[in-house]
């Protein structure tokens, strides 16, 4: 339901105060409680489900496919796709979610993790369903994808099919995989997936995990891509139709700093869910 002018101005004033006052009493870096689970789907290489307090829910499944590569091609094959229930396919929101995550994963994933032999490589499919969302689903989708990628395991080559040294691997035809699933390698053993975080800017304040009403009165949103302990990408996002697209350098750098702190905490929390 749209906010009335009075409600909007009340919310805007209370959010732009210093210190800010959020309607639910959280501080600007505080998330609402989430309910997360990993490894829930047996037909996938990795899967996760996250449910927010407001009913928003996302399920992500990661599947790996073996593809043949031509010699010398260095393209990382990752495809991110998501279904947002209630929105038609190819809606702007869906495109934003998929494109952001796909670029972030492609830019951070080292090619050697997907290598099987010189001729074959994995292609990673990340598919999500957003069952319901009240607030902006980007953070939700990103967190679920992060968790699903942490959970992802890729099967090892069968011991007898792999050659002694690397040159022999070139000669074997179609790779034969070990049938023992417990023997599979974690995709994220030496790599940590990117985490996209959306913050809203109201006046001089930045908030994470904004509710729908908070986003409705914000000046605009900023998304940051967090990877390997630092922010590697950012983008200004519209949070409502009339949202600002231009921000001063100081407010952006302030927002980046706030979101970096939030991402660090979330990364730690999500990593605690998966036990190696």
């Amino acid at each position, binding site marked *: 339901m749209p906010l009335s002018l009075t409600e909007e101005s009340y919310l805007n004033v209370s959010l732009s105060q210093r210190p800010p006052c959020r309607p639910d009493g959280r501080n600007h870096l505080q998330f609402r409680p989430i309910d997360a689970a990993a490894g829930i*789907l*047996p*037909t*996938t290489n990795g*899967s996760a489900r996250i*449910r927010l*307090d*407001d*009913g*928003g*829910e996302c*399920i992500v*499944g*990661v*599947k790996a*496919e073996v593809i043949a590569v031509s010699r010398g091609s260095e393209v990382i094959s990752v495809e991110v*796709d998501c*279904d947002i*229930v209630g929105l038609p*396919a190819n809606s702007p929101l869906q495109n934003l979610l998929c494109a952001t995550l796909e670029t972030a994963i492609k830019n951070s994933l080292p090619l050697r993790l997907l290598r099987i032999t010189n001729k074959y490589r994995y292609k990673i*499919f990340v*598919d999500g*369903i957003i*069952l*319901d969302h009240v607030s902006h689903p980007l953070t939700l989708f990103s967190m679920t994808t992060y968790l699903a990628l942490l959970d992802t395991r890729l099967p090892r080559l069968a011991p007898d099919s792999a050659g002694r040294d690397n040159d022999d691997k070139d000669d074997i035809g179609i790779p034969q995989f070990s049938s023992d699933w417990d023997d599979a390698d974690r995709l994220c053993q030496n790599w940590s997936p990117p985490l996209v975080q959306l913050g809203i800017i109201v006046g001089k304040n930045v908030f994470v995990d904004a509710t729908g009403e908070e986003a409705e009165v914000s000046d605009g949103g900023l998304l940051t891509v967090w990877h390997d302990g630092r922010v590697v990408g950012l983008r200004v996002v519209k949070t409502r139709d009339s949202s600002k697209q231009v921000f001063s350098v100081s407010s952006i750098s302030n927002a980046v700093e706030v979101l970096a702190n939030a991402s660090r905490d979330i990364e730690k929390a999500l990593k605690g869910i998966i036990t190696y």
Partner: protein
Amino acid sequence: MASRLEIFSPEGLRIDGRRWNEVRHFRCAINTHPVSSDGSAIIEQGNTKVICNVIGPVEPTLRSRVVPDRVSISVKVVIAPFSTIDRRKRSQNDSRMQEMCSSIQHVFEDAVIAHLFPRSQIDVNLYVVAQDGGVMQACINATTLALIDAGVPMYDYVCACTAGMLDREVLLDLNRIEESDMPFLTMATIGSKRKVALLQLEMKVQFDRLEPMMAASMSGCHHIRDLMDNEVRKHGKSRLERGSL
């Protein structure tokens, strides 16, 4: 047999070790998404897993959905691309899926006591997150439980089950491998009597073999009804003890 798998061994065991008249492992839960919907359920039948959310009865969002004397039900099925062994992306307009939606809708239009909610709508959203045969039956069973959770009055449980015919042997509740190997039908019954709400058979089968298949799936439906009824009663009891009714 062309396939190298033995679908039904001479000892009377199927590939997953069941007898001919045994249903797969059945697990269900209701009221799983209390915040985002009015009624919700999760069903697992073997490796098939379906989540169902029901929203309603509410005032229709579109004028075109107003029916003056009864409730209008709409069913939407989302099949996750990762639900099958090989990843496959389906569009929402896939004709098979639309057919499935409309047959589930017809079943529940008759099962719900529709005249109690004139000029209102019920939205049923089904999410298939893992499939291993019997998607249709799992969707129908999940919808029944979610509607019960939403408090929508129905005449009785609607339960569905598949049965297939291999040569002269009837097999109950097929998995994906069995489904691809033999003709099978999906049947939905209302209540524990012999009332059929849906019968779907898309393959050729000899006429005299139809009756044993129907009899088998009828008994499967009744068995599933008991399992679902146990879960609903268990859930109701725990809600009562918590004092949240």
